[in-house]
């Protein structure tokens, strides 16, 4: 696997909407490299006869009936919101996007 570059971290930070200083970018590149190295060990044991798994149990077709159940009230829904207004969640201005 290619090494994690400073640019990769900057790109990921942008996608995650996280502002990082140049020092943090350097630091994070090293840390991510180590994490990837650890995860990479899985690839050493993964062989062609072991299909990739996305769920621990081999089940499929687990469906609910299309029946409405009570939702949270507006107050309950907004109770954990850092900011709210007009019965809605209030978030900072979204820059550079539309």
């Amino acid at each position: 696997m290619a090494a994690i570059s400073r640019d990769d971290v900057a790109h990921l930070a942008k996608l995650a909407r996280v502002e990082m200083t140049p020092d943090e970018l350097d630091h994070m590149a090293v840390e991510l490299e180590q994490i990837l190295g650890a995860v990479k060990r899985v690839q050493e044991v993964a062989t062609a006869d072991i299909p990739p798994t996305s769920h621990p149990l081999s089940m499929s077709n687990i469906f609910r009936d299309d029946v409405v159940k009570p939702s949270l009230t507006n107050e309950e829904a907004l109770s954990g919101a850092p900011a709210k207004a007009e019965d809605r969640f209030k978030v900072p201005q979204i820059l550079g996007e539309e």
Partner: protein
Amino acid sequence: MTLDYKSATEKFEPTLGLEVHVELNTNSKMFCSCATEFGASPNTQTCPVCLGLPGALPVVNGKAIESTILIGLALNCSIAPYSRFARKNYFYPDMPKNFQTSQYDEPICVDGYLDVEIETEDGPKTFRVDIERVHMEEDTGKSLHVGGATGRIHGAEYSLLDYNRAGIPLVEIVTRIIPGTGKYAPQVARAYVTQLRDILRALGVSDVKMEQGSLRCDANVSLAPIGSGILGTRSETKNVNSLRSVERALTGEIERQANRLEAGERIIQETRHFLEESGLTRPGRSKEQAEDYRYFPEPDLVPVTPDAKWIEELRAKLPENPADRRKRLQKEWNVPDAEMTSLINAELMDVVEETIKLGAEPTRARTWWLGEISRLANEKEVAPTSLITTAFVAEIIALISSGDLTDKLARQVVEGVVSGEGSPAEVIEKRGLKVVSDDSALMVAIEAAIAAQPDTAERIRGGNIPAVGALIGAVMKATGGQADAAKVRELLLRHLGQG
């Protein structure tokens, strides 16, 4: 020099691609049991699952899967024996989980097509639109940008989020690129979305209201010099909220791209927003690349593996293709093209069919719904179908066919029913609207009319048949318009030795 649409399409060949999003009309959301009602007050249809609270566990709505398979089957797709949900990761407040549960490389339906017919200068022409995939995902919340002069994001001070819509089942239908439409690209796109809407409506899986956003179209288009065989850079136009806008947005976008290319500029791959007022588009948010979404299989959901039996049960439920049905009914009813178009535009095809099924004569069923009933509906600014039932219309038409009502009387019956005076039988009873068909009662009026206009009677006896009009008028007046004019004419002429 600027190129207009005509010269733009003489130089450049457009290639289309269409993505249609359909909100399903299930009672509950895709992964939780919250209601999906449109227009509910903000954040009253949310729960830990659709708010993305820690520890919440989604469970798939079985009805939504059925609807998606039905859509796939109606679009001639193969239904995948194994498909999975995937997380599409992005940070934007319209999705409180910071990912949208969608499908990536394992959609439920693949490889279908829809044939659409448009009018060209050389008559009707059919284009086959290949469908790449039909997949399931969830809708996002609604944002309201506060502050700033234009209500747009730029200059907004903050945004307000309502998550009632977040988690409503959404089906995305993606075409392959549609080459070879030439200057007809905008019409093909419109015809495709129209036909798709009709199919979805016939399937009963969505409200398909473009103005409420339950059907949304993103139109991709690229241009290349005619005959070059290359594929140009595309733009994607969003915010296209009506069938007419689909056509306008593409016409405008083809012109814009052609003029850029003509001026030696590049087309930037970007998302653009359609502006309803001007018919133009403006740049929107720069789109993240597919790899930026870091898709991975959703670990909280198990795969969907529809077996052949289930698929065949659903296939058996498919309604007749609306385009085929239209052609069949037009033939059965023997209707000219223009009138069929009026029926469809007025959304009266279904009620006319129902009225005919109830025994009404086809021509009368059409004329009454398109004529008198539509006229009354227009006056009251309501839908014709809200005024009167098909059963009542069929009853009135049966009385016309049997000669118990004239058209004139029938109009009064319709008016009575519409103003809430009861059933046709009750209106006829209360208003005394039966045709006077009793010959002896008519003969009294006829004798009186002849006695009052002896000269006219003499002229008719002498062979001046058209003169009978004056006498018919007198008889109709005497019977309060309740006689059958044809019958009166027949009796008058016979009485005067001309029958």
